[in-house]
């Protein structure tokens, strides 16, 4: 069951809270508010309201309240008008207000009873004095002059009789002996701003102070006060209170901004150990319920009284992300990891706990097995080496490369224009191969065969018009291809001598697969497996060989079969692809050349291929992109020149690729390559990238006005040509004019170079010109 909150008062907000010695009664004081509540297991119950009727005066507007350490009926308040009152809540009506000391000239901020002498109380005030009262007399017994503008808090030391500390707005802490009213024992500056609160540690001789500089400081008061710990909080500290039974824990609440109560481990001064966020306005009073370190009482300007159970507290440090990691441009990883330190006793237990879930792990943290204050981070740099890039290379390639090297290398070496498409493809295929991008290599080779031998005549305005032209093109292709063929074939046959064995082996393997249609899957399994290969481990495939297979296929395949083959293959579905192949193969496996394995059905040319590779190429490009290789895809499109219009690709997608690739080139600082890509673009939005921010405006060196570009350096306002002169030699500059954008002064570049080798400021105005 949740402990019910108490809403104290609708009219005024609470300024302070005090708990009686036997921990049963709570006094809440505030503006026109002074009430006593009892606390038990069921909640808060109002015992007494001391704001009696209509006679409201300023002495009821209390800044602080304190219980007598002996008599559980007595309490004292410090009022905003400087009045210190003593109350007896057991009495009736007006008699409740036992004593009224109207001695402070200004606001009384704090009041406290002596810990062993029940009749003595002291108060601190804005007038800079501390007064000591004896409730047996109606006058102050002693007055201590703190020599500061204002005393914000006074507290008796629990470790020494008659010693009390006083903190003041000028940032000093004073230690007074009650009996020596003329001079304080110790005085030191604790904070840069006003100190608003202090609290003595219950067991150690430590004094905690909280200040407007957002810090809580812990002072060792043995001998000369020494700073032990500093806690950086997020707001002006209003009150601090040591947590009982925990040497290093202290609770604090803020005067402004922050409504939460934070409990800090003073050894970890940056992040609270626990936070209570229930209040909806500034918390003004906190008290631990006696020696119960798990129960905290608080009151707030939201006019509520809260009892917080420690297990309900939020733990900011546990919510915080414990790790940081980032990937660099070279695939290097910077990684910061929180190191948890376990208490020696419990560490064994938590180690043996296997397969603990996230939740139970969290709970075991709460249980205290982790040394909260010892949390820290370690940072590492992982440098991923060589072929780990996921593009495995041929064994013969002695220089394995990383992904970024591939990217940069390809960006520099791939060529997009200036040669015939076939040559481009050949070159680019070599480059791709060099960098281990076998899929790209395959694609380039493929392109070379399909598009390389044809010169598509621009323009193809519409796809529809293209379809009308289909026949002539195909015919042209059919006639042109054979002219290429002998040369290629000689290459191939050379290769084949070496590779035929392997190729047939591949084919056999494919055939052995339990193909439902009894496949002679011929050339395609290798094809598919290259595009498919999950881990791309198959590096032994010889691509010349593969190219040959492609040739065979291209000139033999009927439209449907080829299409059907190409697409499933792309989608890595070998099984689906095979049946189609097999139809094709059985149809056309007529006269294989004698020295070539089943693969080469080249001599059998005449059936004009009706299959268009465009959709296939487009899909291949899409796939390349989906697996993260926009570089190849875009280079292909650019290289194709006008033929790109044949590919069924949306302009928006291509534009997207352009932007992506340019962005990637920029990231690797390949400015020239990026520029070339932009220049090769036919899309307006991409071309505009190179036209942005190319205009530079010049200012007049005298008046700082922008120069109209009509007449060189002539300024319309000053009617002068002053800015045309070199600010070093004073002569008019002809030729290169170096000019600082910051101060609008400049001159001969060689003069400026000389000048700035010795100086850092502008010769004319002293501006820090940052010439690089």
């Amino acid at each position, binding site marked *: 069951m949740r402990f019910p909150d108490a809403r104290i008062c609708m009219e005024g907000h609470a300024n302070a809270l005090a708990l009686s010695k036997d921990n049963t009664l709570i006094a809440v004081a505030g503006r026109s508010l002074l009430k006593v509540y009892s606390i038990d297991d069921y909640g808060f119950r109002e015992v007494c309201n001391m704001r009696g009727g209509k006679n409201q005066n300023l002495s009821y507007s209390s800044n602080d309240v304190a219980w007598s350490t002996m008599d559980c009926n007595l309490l004292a308040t410090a009022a905003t008008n400087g009045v210190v009152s003593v109350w007896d809540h057991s009495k009736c009506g007006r008699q409740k207000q036992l004593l009224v000391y109207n001695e402070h000239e200004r606001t009384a901020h704090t009041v406290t009873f002596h810990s062993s002498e029940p009749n003595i109380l002291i108060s601190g005030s804005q007038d800079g004095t501390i007064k000591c009262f004896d409730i047996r007399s109606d006058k102050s017994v002693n007055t201590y002059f703190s020599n500061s503008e204002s005393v914000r808090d006074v507290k008796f030391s629990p470790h020494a009789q008659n010693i009390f500390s006083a903190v003041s707005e000028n940032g000093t802490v004073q230690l007074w002996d009650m009996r020596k009213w003329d001079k304080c024992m110790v005085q030191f500056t604790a904070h840069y701003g006003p100190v608003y609160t202090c609290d003595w540690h219950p067991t150690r001789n430590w004094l905690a102070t909280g200040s407007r500089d957002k810090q809580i400081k812990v002072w060792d008061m043995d001998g000369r006060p020494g700073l032990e710990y500093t806690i950086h909080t997020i707001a002006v500290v209003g009150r601090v209170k040591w947590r009982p039974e925990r040497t290093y824990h202290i609770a604090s609440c803020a005067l402004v901004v922050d409504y939460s109560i934070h409990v800090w481990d003073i050894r970890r001064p940056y992040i609270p150990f626990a936070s209570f966020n229930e209040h909806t306005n500034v918390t003004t009073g906190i008290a631990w319920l006696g020696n119960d370190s798990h129960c905290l009482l608080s009151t707030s300007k939201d006019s509520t009284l809260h009892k917080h159970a420690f297990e309900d507290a939020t733990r900011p440090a546990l919510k915080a992300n414990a790790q940081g990691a980032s990937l660099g441009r070279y*695939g290097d990883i910077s990684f910061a990891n929180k190191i948890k330190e376990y208490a020696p006793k419990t560490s064994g237990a938590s180690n043996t706990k296997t397969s603990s879930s996230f939740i139970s792990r969290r709970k075991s943290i709460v249980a205290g097995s982790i040394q909260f204050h010892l949390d820290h981070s370690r940072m590492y740099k992982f440098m991923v080496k060589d072929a780990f890039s996921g593009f495995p290379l041929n064994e013969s390639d002695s220089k394995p490369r990383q992904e970024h090297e591939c990217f940069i290398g390809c960006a520099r070496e791939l060529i997009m224009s200036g040669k015939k498409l076939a040559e481009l493809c050949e070159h680019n295929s070599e480059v791709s191969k060099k960098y281990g991008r076998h899929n790209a290599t395959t694609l380039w080779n493929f392109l070379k065969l399909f598009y390389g031998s044809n010169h598509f005549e621009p323009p193809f305005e519409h796809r529809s018009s293209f379809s009308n032209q289909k026949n002539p093109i195909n015919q042209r292709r059919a006639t042109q291809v054979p002219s290429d063929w002998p040369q290629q074939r000689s290459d191939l046959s050379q290769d084949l001598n070496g590779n035929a064995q392997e190729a047939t082996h591949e084919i056999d393997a494919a055939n052995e697969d339990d193909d439902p249609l009894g496949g002679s899957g011929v050339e395609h399994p290798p094809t598919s497996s290259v595009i498919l290969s*999950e881990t791309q481990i198959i590096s032994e495939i010889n691509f010349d060989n593969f190219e040959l297979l492609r040739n065979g296929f291209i000139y033999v395949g009927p439209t449907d079969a080829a299409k059907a083959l190409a697409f499933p293959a792309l989608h890595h579905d070998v099984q689906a692809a095979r049946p189609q192949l097999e139809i094709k193969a059985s149809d056309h496996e007529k006269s294989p050349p004698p020295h070539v394995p089943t693969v080469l059905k080249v001599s059998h040319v005449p059936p004009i291929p009706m299959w268009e590779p465009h959709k296939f190429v487009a899909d291949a490009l*899409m796939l390349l992109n989906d697996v993260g290789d926009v570089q190849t895809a875009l280079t292909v499109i650019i290289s194709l020149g006008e033929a790109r219009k044949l590919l069924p690709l949306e302009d928006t997608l291509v534009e997207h690729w352009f*932007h992506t690739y340019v962005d990637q080139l920029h990231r690797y600082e390949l400015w020239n390559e990026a520029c070339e890509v932009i220049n090769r673009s036919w899309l307006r939005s991409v071309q505009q990238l190179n036209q942005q921010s190319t205009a530079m405006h010049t200012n007049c060196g005298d008046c700082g006005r922008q120069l109209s570009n009509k007449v060189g350096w002539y300024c319309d306002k000053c009617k002068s040509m002053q800015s045309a002169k070199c600010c070093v030699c004073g002569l008019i500059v002809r030729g290169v004019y170096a000019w600082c954008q910051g101060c609008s002064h400049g001159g001969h570049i060689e003069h400026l170079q000389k000048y700035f080798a010795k100086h850092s400021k502008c010769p004319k105005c002293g501006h820090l010109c940052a010439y690089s």
Partner: protein
Amino acid sequence: MFTVQWESRSVTVVRAKESGESKTTTYWKNKSHEKKMFDVEPIIADHKDVIHDVVFDYYGRRMATCSSDQTVKIWDEDAQGKWSVTSSWKAHSGSIWRVSWAHPEFGQVVATCSFDRTASVWEEVIGEKVSTTNTPTRRWVRRTTLVDSRTSVTDVEFAPKYLGLLLATASADGIIRIYEAPDIMNLSQWPVQHEIANKLPLSCLSWNTSTYMVTQLLAAGSDDSATPTGKVFLFAYSDNARKCVKIDTVNDITDPVTDVAFAPNAGRTFHMLAVASKDLYIVNLRGVTDSTGTTKLDIQTVKFSDHNCPVWRVCWNMLATMLISTGDDGCVRLWRMNYNKQWRCAAVLKAEGSGPTYEPAPPTPTLAATASATAKFYKKGTIGNQVPWH
């Protein structure tokens, strides 16, 4: 000192150790050939508390770290590839959760967010040359403090460049704020452009840099553990409402989310969002235009249950071909996409001595062998030899 675990289709996991004086090299074996896989170097960060974020800048040439010790450090790489701190300053009065670099076109600018409920924008300025031989001193100047949040600001990120100089913050009370610097020469003015309130506290956010089909897409995650609802939200600019609105929730992810990261623009037709939660998720988002012409998101969530421990951070490489995720066990996992368009864990990098680890339970039959081997190996880890700080 360090361990490697290499997973691949046909390769059994083999680990070998070779300790050197200061540097440790680890080898992996793949069938017959043995190759160096990665080096690991400890970096002396000198942060006095937990480091919460490590971020490279746009080019990967600079690095920023932020910590609970309320400082931000900027690192530069020297010619030998060694990182060293070139600036360090106390940036907030609370733990600094995250740091983000602006696009370099806007100058050297970082934003930080903190437990102290503020986010700040910092710019590096070049000071006066002390002498002509020295490089001029550089220091970071606070340009603005964004104080709108009433609770801890849990994440901050600059928007991709095409949107201009925009900054999004997420806070623990569930509010996303988008600030814009209308004048990029004046970084002290950051009016709030959008404020989107959510019911759940937010722990992280990420901008989508890719513009294909959807623009100005923003994802945020919540670390709330009380409700069993979806924890990843998607926001986009709505032309009708003329403001940023929540357009979708990824309902498949109901565990508290600690980090989200959109993959960098890589020319894909879909967008990938990595989500760190109890498990690692990759959410594929595809913009679909329906018959009425409105664009909707087609969401497909892939869960990786073989992470074996809660995930704290996710990060992509520049080309979006590799994803790393860091687990509560102190391991960094590398994920790569294969040609089936599936992401697979390619390697687990671990720096030993990072405390007790989770014993990975065998999640899938295929991984059982590796997992038990891993578990055995993890047990060798020690937590000794550590110097506690105070």
